């Protein structure tokens, strides 16, 4: 989802007394009751047997998310720059790329890359004989590629707005001081653009997290795929899905907290 960056505000948790109003205490008690009921009455006997697999899946989800966000952001910077100030030769393809990525479902992109490239590569002997072939036979490089491209497409659009929103005077001042263009970009333009984009980037990272379970459809065993396997093996439906929901809620919470911490670290005095 694209949202205009909300005004940069330092997050201050409300005092505990204000949070714990009577109805909230009751609601928390009901929540505790539900959790206790779930823990006691639902079937959790499969948990120890699958715990190793689940931890591996969780780790795979997390590094897929982190790596694809990192690489995608690296791609998004030139994409945003090209759209914001680039010459037409660069701006038009960059805009077309962002439109196509944002206009088609991630699942379709994933399957195009996995099944399409996956069926194309073996036709060329030099690819099969290359050092990369053992990796290209696995599914995760395709998953990583698809997630990275998708993130780059969405973030290219965000960075376009961010680059444009840096006040012109800042750049002019830097130029007047005789800063070389690369230094200007590194010291003035990029940091301010990232600072403005940070609240949006946090939300986009949560959206990227919500895209990761799709990789299970191309045989990457992430945390979602593990619960699917539990369901197939044991015919237990609700318990793995409940646990999965809690896991995703926790990861999303951690992402939000991380970005709040990041935003809090940047000293800012926006007019």
């Amino acid at each position: 989802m694209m949202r205009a960056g909300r005004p940069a505000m330092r997050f201050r948790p409300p005092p505990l007394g204000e949070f714990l109003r009577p109805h909230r205490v009751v609601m928390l008690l009901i929540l505790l009751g539900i959790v206790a009921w779930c823990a006691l009455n639902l079937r959790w006997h499969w948990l120890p047997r699958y715990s190793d697999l689940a931890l591996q899946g969780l780790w795979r989800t997390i590094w897929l998310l982190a790596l694809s966000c990192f690489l995608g952001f690296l791609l998004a910077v030139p994409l945003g720059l090209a759209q914001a100030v680039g010459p037409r030769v660069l701006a038009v393809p960059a805009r077309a790329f962002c439109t196509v990525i944002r206009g088609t479902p991630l699942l379709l992109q994933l399957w195009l890359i996995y099944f399409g490239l996956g069926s194309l590569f073996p036709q060329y002997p030099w690819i099969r004989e290359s050092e990369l072939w053992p990796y290209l036979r696995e599914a995760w490089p395709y998953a990583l590629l698809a997630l990275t491209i998708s993130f780059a497409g969405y973030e290219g659009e965000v960075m376009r707005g961010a680059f444009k929103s840096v006040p012109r005077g800042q750049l002019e001042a830097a130029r007047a001081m005789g800063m070389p263009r690369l230094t200007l970009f590194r010291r003035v333009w990029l940091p301010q653009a990232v600072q403005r984009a940070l609240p949006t980037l946090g939300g986009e990272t949560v959206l990227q997290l919500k895209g990761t379970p799709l990789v299970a459809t191309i045989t990457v065993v992430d945390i979602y795929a593990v619960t699917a396997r539990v369901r197939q093996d044991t015919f237990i439906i609700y318990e793995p899905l409940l646990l999965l929901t809690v896991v995703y809620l926790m990861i999303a919470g951690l992402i939000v907290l991380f970005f709040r911490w990041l935003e809090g670290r940047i000293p800012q005095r926006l007019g």
Partner: protein
Amino acid sequence: MIDALIEALGLGRTVELLALSPPGWGGNLLRGLVASIQIALGAFAMGLVIGLFGAWGKLYGGPVTRDLLAVYTTVVRAVPELVLILILYYAGTDLLNRALMAVGYGRVELSGVVAGIGVLGIVQGAYATEVLRGAIQAVPAGQVEAGRAFGMPALMLMRRIVLPAMLPFAIPGLANLWLIATKDTALLAVVGFAELTLETRQAAAATRHYFTFFLAAGALYLTVTLISARLFGRLERWARRGEPDVAGAR
């Protein structure tokens, strides 16, 4: 002329594969597209209704309503749609069947369309709640107070003042939601519902022409996106009619 062009570009095989009649798979793709759009429309409409009530509850409801709605929007926006689809699909069918058994009817199988609309509608509802809440908040308080001062009942106030006044603020967000709805229908492919993405995969797997079909489906999705963007742009201009033109505003 066109035939010669197709031959020159070496697209003869592609045209054959995408032909509308049975040896080609174009008809299947279009049927999938229709199913996708049906579900997207249904889910979007359901999301709007949920969002309207949700926004109303978040703004004017009591503390319990507000907290419950906060839980709803937070959970739905943090948990992957795929997981929600599975939960709601299984739990929905299960609960419905238990209810039907209790009343004395037999089991039913939820049709893919109904289940898809229900699940995606609940997801859309959470996002729509936030979009509409922001839009309603952007309506100047004086306008609502003026309506109240004239003794308008709540429903008339909503119909005559709040809804038209918030529309310009809501439309960009709603346009985004509609695009998300069309793209989220692809997720139903994972639970085996024959919408565009699944039809495409089946066609691709049967003919082993993966690029042709996935690119064709991508073009279809993109067409829907671009046409909707145009329509929503027009809708926004209509909603903003009569607003003073602010020169230089972005």
